[in-house]
């Protein structure tokens, strides 16, 4: 991800008013904790909207222009990927050793922010579970399903509605 800016896509239910900014995901099971989640590929945003943003029967897709600064790229950057998984294992091993309890996704993410004080980290680009019905070869997950989490709005240059559809 060498560009200084890149696009990514945010899926949400369609409500009466258009969004002016992404909605924060606060689920305990969100891969990288509380944050604003985006899809790297437009087709993944569509799939997510169709399958998981159905409360109102219709979904919307927003396109964001993201400033690539202080974002940990664990997908395309080998050094950052190696760094990331090493830190996760280090924290998890310490928690298990000292408390005899395995940390949850939420706890690992909060440890980095709160105890590691990684406050300058603005977001993480990461590879989601590689299941994807849009792949053309049965069982060969040659195309990564990539998500971006941002921890605040600082890196969002532009955020605009681009599409909607029925669930």
């Amino acid at each position: 991800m060498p560009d200084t800016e890149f696009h990514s896509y945010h899926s949400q239910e369609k409500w009466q008013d258009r969004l002016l900014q992404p909605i924060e995901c606060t689920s305990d099971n969100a891969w990288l904790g509380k944050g604003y989640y985006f899809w790297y590929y437009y087709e993944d945003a569509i799939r997510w909207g169709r399958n998981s943003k159905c409360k109102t029967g219709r979904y919307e897709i927003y396109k964001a222009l993201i400033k690539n600064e202080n974002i940990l790229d664990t997908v395309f950057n080998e050094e950052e990927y190696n760094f990331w998984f090493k830190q996760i294992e280090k924290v998890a091993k310490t928690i298990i050793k000292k408390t005899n309890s395995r940390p949850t996704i939420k706890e690992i993410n909060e440890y980095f922010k709160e105890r590691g004080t990684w406050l300058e980290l603005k977001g993480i680009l990461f590879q989601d579970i590689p299941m994807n019905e849009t792949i053309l070869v049965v069982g060969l997950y040659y195309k990564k399903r990539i998500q971006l989490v941002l921890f605040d709005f600082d890196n969002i240059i532009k955020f605009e509605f681009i599409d909607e559809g029925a669930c």
Partner: protein
Amino acid sequence: MLNLKELEKRLDDALAKETKESLTSWLMSKRFKNFITGSGEGEFDILLSKSSTLSDSNRAVVKDLCQSAKIDNNNRLAEAA
């Protein structure tokens, strides 16, 4: 650009300072808050059995958490009224 060495150093420093007590307290406070968020209205009383393996400092943490949960719930009730 992120300074990975600096991030790692800060994390290593934090991990090096952790004790069984500090990490258990931190984890307990996370899990307790999570439990409170998903529970209903009311108050909490601490009920620890005599055979509890909690250390004195972690008993104190649980007491504090119960107290703050009580305050939070009272605030919630006041806001709802």
